[in-house]
Every structure is written in C-alpha cells, then in structure tokens.
C-alpha cells in the first residue's frame, strides 16, 4: 500500500478547504442539541436547525465562490484534506473531504434548498406535537447529506450515506402511528439496504485493489491515474475490468438510493412522510445522492473508454447505467400517468427524472447529469412544496380527483406550481428543465452505442408533459370537488415557493448551449469528460423536436383533461378508452406484487420453515435433554437424602464444634490480632533466617 500523504502535501489546502468540515458539522451539532430539547421548545429547535443550516449555506457559498475564482484563475480547483482515521499495522484507513466544482455546486444546492424547506416546514409542521423531533431529524439529515457531498473517502461517504438512509427511515416513519407510514419506512430502509450491500462489496473490493478509499490524494487516491491503471489491469467477470465491476457494484447502491429500477418501489411509498420530507429527501437531495455518487466515482466507470469520433465512447459500466436510467425514466413516467395521489405522481416523476439523470451521466458525462440534478432539485422541491401547500390548504386531501379549481383559492401556490410544472415538463427556452433535459437528450443522440435510449427518453419527455398537465388540470382547473373550501397557505410556506420558482426559471440559463458555463466549470477538472459540443449542427433541430414533443404532451393532456372536471367516482378518461393498459399502469406494473409473490413470499416461507425447525427439531432435542437431566436429578436426590446427608450432617457437627473452638481466637480485640500478626512476623523471620543459614 502506498504511502499516505496526509493533509494534502503539494498544494496545501486553503483555509477554506481546511474548515470545510464545519459545513456538515453545524447541522449535526444542531441536531444533537435539538435531540436533547423538550418538545415544547419549538422555537428554539427550529431556530437551531435553520440557523445552523444558514451557517452552512453561508460557508458553502464562500467555498463555492472560492472555487469559482480558483477556476477562473485557472488554479487547481480541487483541494483535499485527508487525515488518518484508524491505523492497523501498516494499513491505515484515511478519511477526508474534498472541495471541487462538483462538491461546491452540490453544497450550495443542498444547503440552499434545504434551508428553504426548513423554513417551509415551520409552517407545515405547525400543528405537529413532535415539532422538535422533526427538526432534529431534518438537521441530522442535512448534516449527513452535506457530509456525503464533501466526502473525499468512499468510507466517509458510505457512513454519511447510511446516516442519510437512517434519517430517511426516521422521517418517512415520522408519523409512526400510521401503520402505512411505519410500513413504508421499513420498506424504504430494507430496499435501500439491498443496494447498500452491493455498495459495501464494491467498497471492500476497491480497498482490496487499491489499498485506499480516498478519492483524491495527490496521485495516491483511488480515482487517480495510478490506481485507475491498476484497476484497469485486473479483468473481472463478463469482460468487465475491475474498475467497471466496482463501479457497477457502487452503482447498485446508487440504484437503491435514487429509486432506479428495480429498487424503485420504496420511493413512492416514502410519500407517507410529511411533505417537506418528501420534498427535501425524496425529491431534491437524498435521492439525488445516488446520482451524485455516480458523478463522484465517474472516473472509475469511465476509465478505459476510448474516443469514437467526436464523442467519448462508452464502457460496459456506463452502458448499464444508461440503460437502467433510460428504462426507469420511461417506466416511472408511464406509471405516473395513472396515479391519483398528488404526491405519488410527483414521486414517480422523481423516479423518472432520476432515470434521466442516470442516463445523462451514462451518456453525456458528469456535467449533463449534474446539471439536470441541480435544476431538478429546485423545481421538484418546488413542486413538492406546492403539493404540500395544496394538501395543507385542502385539509390533508391528497386525491387529485377530489380537488379542482384551486387556481382561484390559492393563487400563489398555483402560480409557483405552474412554474414548477412547466420546468419539469421542460417547456421550451424559458424554464431550467428544458435546458437540462435537452442536454441529456442531446447526449443521448450523440451516444455512440445505440440510439434506443434517445427514443425512450423522448417518449419519457412526452409522458412527463402529459402527466404533469393532467395533474395540474385536475388540481387547479375545473371546479372544486372537495368538501371543505380550500384556503391559501401562510406566508412562511408561500415565500419559499416563490424563491424556488424564481430559481427554477433562472437556473437554466447557466447551462444553455449558447453559454455552457455550468458544464465548463464542472467538466474542467474532472477527468476528461467532453463538454457537449455546443456548436454542433443537429442541436437546433433537436431543440425544436423536444419542444414539439413537450408541447404535444401538454396539448394532448389538455385535450383529455382540460376544462372538464370529472367527479371522483367516474373512471378516468384514459380508463374509459384503454382499460387494460390503464389497469397495468394503475397497478404500477405490479412490481410490488411481484416482489410480494417472489422475494417476500420466499422469506415468509423460510421463516415458517425456521419456525418449524425451532419448534419441532431443536425444541424436541432440548426437551429430550431436559428429561434426561431431570431423571438423573431424581436419582441424585434419592442418593442425597439417604446416603450423603447422613455423613454430611455428621461432618457438619464436627465442623461447627471445631469452629466454636477457633472462634475463641476471634475476640474482636484489635490488639490481640495485632499481637498475633507480630508473632507471625517473628516466626516467619526466624524461619527465613534459618533457611538462609542452611
């Protein structure tokens, strides 16, 4: 194992990088304090959480600015700070954190969106008696997430990753009184665990191969040329290099976390949690962590790829990522078409969008995927918060068929929600979603392996537009079908909506093909991913196509659902036209049932078997042994009573009389003891001397 250079020898990390750890530390500390608070200390708890997170935001902005300026000055934009965590013999496990464009951008995004959602939660959780607990969990989550972002060691990343998983579990099951919530929490936890097992395997393998888990360590890190060459040298199964295999294993973890096929099942159920949680964890940040992870270990996946024409060729690992992403995108979008729960729709759309990101990573490289991640984080958070505000305003109503005409009752929500929806659909030119999604589509078009993902993604775009329009039509248009009239949400909830809306518009413009600042910034340092060729002929055509697709989707949906507002009882328009398909989509392709019929059923059966074994086999054995011993004991008792005791009693009498004699010695007079002691000393000394004589 190579010599670990701790705390970054050559370019000594700037003080900002040195203090980067403060960013995750602050919320975690806040969580620790909040955990000790009593329930009534609401203001303090929320104050702590928000204060700490705004502190992190401030630091993140500073770090970001620092990094951008370094980039602008063509200085090295990656600063790492490493330290040895444990040392076992010659092996030492190092942890550390890294400040590079990737982490800088993520830091800002996470802390900013998180902050807005925290503020929003004050309003949303107002009436919950576990307010402080909620904020404790939230800050813990934020801290862990930021930890994931800055981690420079797969191990540290994994730790924070697990904490994130834990908080997700806690927050999904926040209303654990609801059995459905508890079940959802458990489901989420277990499902993600499945992915994490592979992640862990990949990690171990990586350590075994490179002897380090640090990403960057001045050439000694596992993502740097030396280690990569080594990894490339070792072939693994199925024509994969060790690099690719490890990458795929890690990708499994990402699949679990960001709800890709086939581990997506937990994400829709996760909507049982409070809406801010859905927004923060299950739309904006945590699920994006998977994507981020892939972006982080991208070199691992990409190494060995060769240039074909003007685009970089793919590797098996990347191909897998791409396919998984593309399929998930369409799959989830299809399901989303047929859902009635406002949050469920958004959940599936999240899954699908994550699929987009994955595909983008797989085909276009870090910049493409990350760009969509960032924009998506904003508008999806916006949508969720909007949904939350709708739910809040309609007294915990979640079924979109029981809403309608809300644009009048809650104008702010409507406006912002509309923005979010258009952004998600990728409405041409104006909205961020358009640009980011366009990037992905273009990457898909240029992809050297096959075109299929491209068509899938285009179809996905159509569907996205469709279901979002459907939802909006249901919720905000037509007339009110609920019982109690709706009301607009308080300022503390609407303000974040407005801010998010603003960003989900403007963010797009930092990454337009005309001025791909974002891509340049991001791809500059990370190992040679190509910036998407912005002066590439097909671009305009592509843009028009995607716009047309989007418009088509919106128009179609509007034709079907627009204006009219069916009563909750009457079947959905699609259902009337194509019932079987509808049922399939409605039933989410019956994946849950499938798992239920296979995996869970198997485990259930296995449990039965084990139970039977316990009762019958082992239990029987134990019983037999028991009987044997019982019989033996009876025999002993017999012997005791008739033989032993007699002798024993006799002996006892003897002893007690002897004790009586001895007890004379114990007068309770200290001095007599002392005398005896001294006598003993004398005797011993004399013996000693005589023995030494002889």
């Amino acid at each position, binding site marked *: 194992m190579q010599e670990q250079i701790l705390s970054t020898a050559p370019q000594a990390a700037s003080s900002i990088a040195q203090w980067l750890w403060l960013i995750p530390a602050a919320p975690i500390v806040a969580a620790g304090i909040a955990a000790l608070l009593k329930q009534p200390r609401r203001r303090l708890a929320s104050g702590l959480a928000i204060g700490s997170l705004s502190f992190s935001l401030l630091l993140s902005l500073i770090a970001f600015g620092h990094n951008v300026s370094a980039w602008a000055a063509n200085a090295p934009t990656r600063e790492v700070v490493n330290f040895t965590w444990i040392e076992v013999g010659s092996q030492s496990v190092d942890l550390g954190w890294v400040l590079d464009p990737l982490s800088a951008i993520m830091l800002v995004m996470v802390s900013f969106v998180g902050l807005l959602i925290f503020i929003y939660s004050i309003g949303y959780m107002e009436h919950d008696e576990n307010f402080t607990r909620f904020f404790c969990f939230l800050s813990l989550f934020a801290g862990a997430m930021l930890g994931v972002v800055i981690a420079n060691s797969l191990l540290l990343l994994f730790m924070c990753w697990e904490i994130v998983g834990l908080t997700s579990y806690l927050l999904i099951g926040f209303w654990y009184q609801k059995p459905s919530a508890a079940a959802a929490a458990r489901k989420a936890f277990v499902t993600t665990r499945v992915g994490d097992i592979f992640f862990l395997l990949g990690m171990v393998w990586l350590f075994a191969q490179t002897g380090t888990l640090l990403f960057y360590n001045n050439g000694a890190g596992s993502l740097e040329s030396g280690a990569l060459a080594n990894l490339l040298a070792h072939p693994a199964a199925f024509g994969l290099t060790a690099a690719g295999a490890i990458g795929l294993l890690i990708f499994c973890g990402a699949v679990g976390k960001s709800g890709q096929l086939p581990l997506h099942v937990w994400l829709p159920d996760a909507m049982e949690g409070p809406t801010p949680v859905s927004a923060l964890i299950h739309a904006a940040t945590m699920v994006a962590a998977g994507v981020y992870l892939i972006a982080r270990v991208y070199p691992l996946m990409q190494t060995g790829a060769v240039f074909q024409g003007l685009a970089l060729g793919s590797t098996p690992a990347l191909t897998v990522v791409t396919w998984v992403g593309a399929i998930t995108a369409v799959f989830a979008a299809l399901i989303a078409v047929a859902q009635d729960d406002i949050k469920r729709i958004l959940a599936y759309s999240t899954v699908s969008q994550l699929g987009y990101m994955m595909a983008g990573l797989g085909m276009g490289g870090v910049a493409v995927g990350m760009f969509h991640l960032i924009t998506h984080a904003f508008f999806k958070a916006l949508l969720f918060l909007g949904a939350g505000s709708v739910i809040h305003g309609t007294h915990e109503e979640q079924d979109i068929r029981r809403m309608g005409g809300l644009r009048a009752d809650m104008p702010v929500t409507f406006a912002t929600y509309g923005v979010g929806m258009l952004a998600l659909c990728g409405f041409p030119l104006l909205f961020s979603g358009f640009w980011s999604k366009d990037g992905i589509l273009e990457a898909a078009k240029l992809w050297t392996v096959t075109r299929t993902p491209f068509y899938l993604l285009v179809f996905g775009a159509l569907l996205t537009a469709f279901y979002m329009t459907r939802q909006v039509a249901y919720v905000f248009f037509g007339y009110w079908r609920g019982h109690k009239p709706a009301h607009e949400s308080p300022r503390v909830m609407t303000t974040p909506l407005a801010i998010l809306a603003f960003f989900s518009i403007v963010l797009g413009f930092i990454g337009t093909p005309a001025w791909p600042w974002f891509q340049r910034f991001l791809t500059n340092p990370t190992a040679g991913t190509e910036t998407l060729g912005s002066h590439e002929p097909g671009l305009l055509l592509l843009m028009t196509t995607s716009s047309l697709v989007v418009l088509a989707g919106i128009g179609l949906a509007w034709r079907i659902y627009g204006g009219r507002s069916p009563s909750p009882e009457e079947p959905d328009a699609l259902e009337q036209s194509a019932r079987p398909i509808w049922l399939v989509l409605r039933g989410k392709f019956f994946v849950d049932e499938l798992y239920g019929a296979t995996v869970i059923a198997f485990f259930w059966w296995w449990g039965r078997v084990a139970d039977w074994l316990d009762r019958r086999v082992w239990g029987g054995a134990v019983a037999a042994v028991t009987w044997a011993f019982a019989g033996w004991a009876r025999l002993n008792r017999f012997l005791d009573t008739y033989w032993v005791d007699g002798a024993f009693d006799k002996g006892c009498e003897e002893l007690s009389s002897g004790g009586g004699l001895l007890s004379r010695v114990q*007068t*309770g*007079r*200290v*001095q007599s003891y*002392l*005398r005896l002691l*001294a006598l003993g000393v004398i005797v011993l000394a004399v013996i000693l001397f005589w023995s030494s004589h002889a």
Partner: protein
Amino acid sequence: MNPLTGYLLVAALLFATGLAGALTRRNAILVLIGIELMLNAANLNLIAFWRYGPHPEALTGFLFAIFSIAVAAAEAAVGLGLVISIYRHLRTTDLDAMNRMKG
C-alpha cells in the same frame, strides 16, 4: 559500624517502640500513634536505603517514602475518623471495650 546500619537500627528501635505502644495502650488514638510511629520507621528505612543504595538517581526508595507518607496521612485521617465515630457510639476510646460489631 557503617552509617546505614545505624539508621536501620534506629528505625528498628522506633518500629519496636511503636509496636509496643500499639500493643500495650488501651486508648485507640494511642494505638494509632503507635502505628504512625511504625510507618515512620519504615519511611526512615526507605530513605536510608535510597541514600546508600546502589541507584539513588532512580529515586525508587525516595518516592516510595513520599507515597507512604501520603498513604499514612490518609490512614491517619480515616483511623481517627473511625475512632471518633466509635466514640460517639460507645462513649469510650478504650480498645478493650470495642469488641463488638454492634454499635
């Protein structure tokens, strides 16, 4: 005779005196005094051996003496505390009277 022997003899004499006191006096406090004397005799030995020992720079005996002084202080405090609390029960410090565990 060599100096160390002298010190040792003095220490032994002191020890014997203390022992005699501890063995012959009735008053618990005086017994304690005797014990203190014995301890000090031991200290004298330690210091003397340190001084004339082969490795005075190792400070072994010296520090042993220091520690034993500290311990002796603790012993005195506890012992006298005991005597006082016993006196509270039995109204006497006569050791011969203190032969019961019941207070």
